[in-house]
């Protein structure tokens, strides 16, 4: 019972973190169809900017400034890079963002070096919040969970309750018609890309001090965010949310199980935990290409 509840709590926490990471990619990949391989790199940039800003000005300003700065960088990249690549098709977009990921990593190396930076959890949020059996639950993780849920609510509200959101959704399926109606679709896409990047950066500000801020952090989470978006289904924010929680909980519970797989005596379920999300993605693509709640196929 103790392990079950603790694992459930850890699973939900991890799931919500995955959502924080992937919500921006959901916007970009799902809504725009752009395979942004550099998404995790913007998460990393957010962490580094968060570190610099919080060191000089404080953590709360960093929460606002870092996403805005990185989002602006993202918007510029869309305006002068992705948009041109888009004209050449999906492969060009993919390769452009693929190269961009390496470029960002190298710039981070040059500016901040290869070692982790001492990005600390702010003192006000450091320490335990409550206790489950013998384990304490950190205040900061509760903060992370709250921000993640806040992201979901805010995104959902924007996409379904505002004119900008409605136009974005319309532009997804009928960009030509939306343009004919007088909306600036390219500018709209720039805003969406910048917004998605800003969300990744916000996740970076929050995740960078909870885990480690170092140049390898982008590679560590780069692939899992795609799994979330694919499993959740393209075009579905709620799908991404459900997929994040499902994967987070499943992976955490798998780690908790030491049962040996018959026929593979050296292997425990715990050891297979890291690969389970990808197994799920493969199964989803085979059996249900639209994902859990997708509106179109991957």
């Amino acid at each position, binding site marked *: 019972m103790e*392990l079950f509840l*603790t694992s459930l709590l850890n699973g939900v926490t991890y799931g919500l973190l995955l959502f924080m990471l992937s919500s921006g990619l959901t916007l970009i990949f799902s809504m725009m169809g752009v395979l942004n391989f550099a998404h995790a790199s913007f998460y990393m940039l957010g962490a580094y900017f968060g570190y610099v800003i919080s060191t000089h000005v404080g953590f709360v300003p960093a929460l606002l400034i870092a996403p805005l700065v990185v989002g602006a960088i993202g918007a510029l990249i869309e305006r002068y890079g992705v948009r041109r690549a888009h004209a050449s098709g999906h492969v060009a977009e993919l390769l452009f963002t693929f190269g961009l990921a390496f470029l960002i990593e190298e710039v981070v190396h040059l500016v901040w*070096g*290869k070692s982790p930076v001492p990005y600390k959890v702010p003192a006000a949020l450091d320490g335990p919040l409550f206790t489950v059996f013998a384990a304490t639950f950190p205040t900061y993780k509760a903060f992370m969970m709250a921000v993640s849920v806040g992201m979901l609510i805010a995104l959902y509200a924007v996409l379904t309750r505002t004119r900008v959101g409605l136009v974005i959704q319309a532009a997804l399926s009928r960009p030509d018609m939306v343009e004919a109606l007088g909306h600036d679709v390219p500018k709209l896409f720039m805003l969406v890309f910048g917004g998605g990047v800003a969300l990744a950066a916000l996740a970076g500000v929050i995740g960078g001090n909870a885990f*480690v801020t*170092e*140049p390898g952090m982008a590679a*560590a989470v780069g692939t899992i965010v795609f799994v979330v978006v694919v499993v959740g289904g393209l075009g579905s924010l709620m799908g991404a949310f459900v997929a994040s929680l499902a994967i987070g909980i499943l992976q955490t519970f798998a780690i*908790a199980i030491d049962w040996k797989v018959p026929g593979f005596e050296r292997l425990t379920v715990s050891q297979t*935990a890291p690969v389970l999300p990808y197994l799920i993605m493969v199964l989803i693509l085979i059996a249900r290409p639209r994902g859990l709640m997708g509106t179109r196929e991957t």
Partner: protein
Amino acid sequence: MATRKILGAALAAFAFAAPACAWAQVRIAYIDPLSGAMGATGEHGLRELEFAIEAINAKGGVLGQKMAVVPMDNKLSSQESLNLLKSAIDQGIRYVSQGNGSAVAGALIDAINKHNERNPDQAVVYLNYAAVDPDFTNDKCSFWHFRFDANTDMKMAALTDYLKDQKKVSKVYLLNQDYSHGHQVSKVAKAMLAEKRPDVKVVGDELHPLARVKDFAPYIAKIQASGADTVITGNWGTDLSLLVKAAKDANLKADFYTYYGGTVGVPPAMGDAGIDRVKVVSYWSSNSMNAAGQVVQDAYRKKYGADQDPYSQSIRISAEFLVRAMEKAKTTNPVAVAKAMEGMKVDGPFGEITMRAEDHQLIQPMFIATFVKAGGPLKYSADGTKEYAFRADARVEAAAAARPTTCKMKRP
């Protein structure tokens, strides 16, 4: 007239430049991760090697030649390491230094053995400063491999000898990385605990992916549920800093017995939560050295920062052994140097150090140290911190630290 002056100046410049060519170079290829999750660990080793080489060059180099380090980023990949080794050999480099990852080390030893067998006049020597798989100085020993760190048998023997007298230890959880090093730590720990403390229960034996876990909270939950009062881990790099961070967040009460508790990223991650609870077994104990050792440490901390701990003594001592072997052999030829290095003794910062001839394992004193507040006699702080330090609780003399070897070395 002007042309002749310019030409004359150019010729003079060339003439002055000529003597610089007399400085031939002994180059050491440093093959370790310099990017990615473990990049910081590799960077630290590189810095210490360069620090040692700079000191050697400042005293005139070796046999009239300068020494140089050629950094090569293997991204913690065995395949990449083999490519880099080939590149180093093609560049005429005959000495390789590596330490992070026994899987990489195993690949290098195998490749170097093959290369040296096929190209005896282009022999390569491998200086291993931190890959601690016992096999490399036992069944898989090689004349071309010299290990300057203690191996897992030696570390675990020292750790369990200390743990034997810790009465409060009753339930042990083993948590390690899922690759050759982690497997060895787990295997040796269970064997030695059964031998020295049969009353102690091993309540968990876990392996996790190397350099890929971002959040150790699920593993900490299992440790807490198991009721373990002690965790033994050979984790290194971010796998250790993240582990202790998660343990602190969850308020895990167990003590940690580690191999690498003092390495980059870990002391800052532990903070107050690690006080009196994290122990490290190492050949390094920054507050236990003799006067000569303190001079080196002071120079290092002056150059890189008061909170920077030069804990990779193994890599600095490997450079010193190399230089002395070259001077003894009166050549930089790898075969002669390797022979000269066998059985060689050097005065280290904690006493005499011997490169055992039969298996090329360095025999040196070892320490069990506990993470505590700095201050008082603990003059040197733990890496990356100013307020914490390691206090040596037990010292294992070199002779006692040595373990028997099964090595039956084939020599050229």
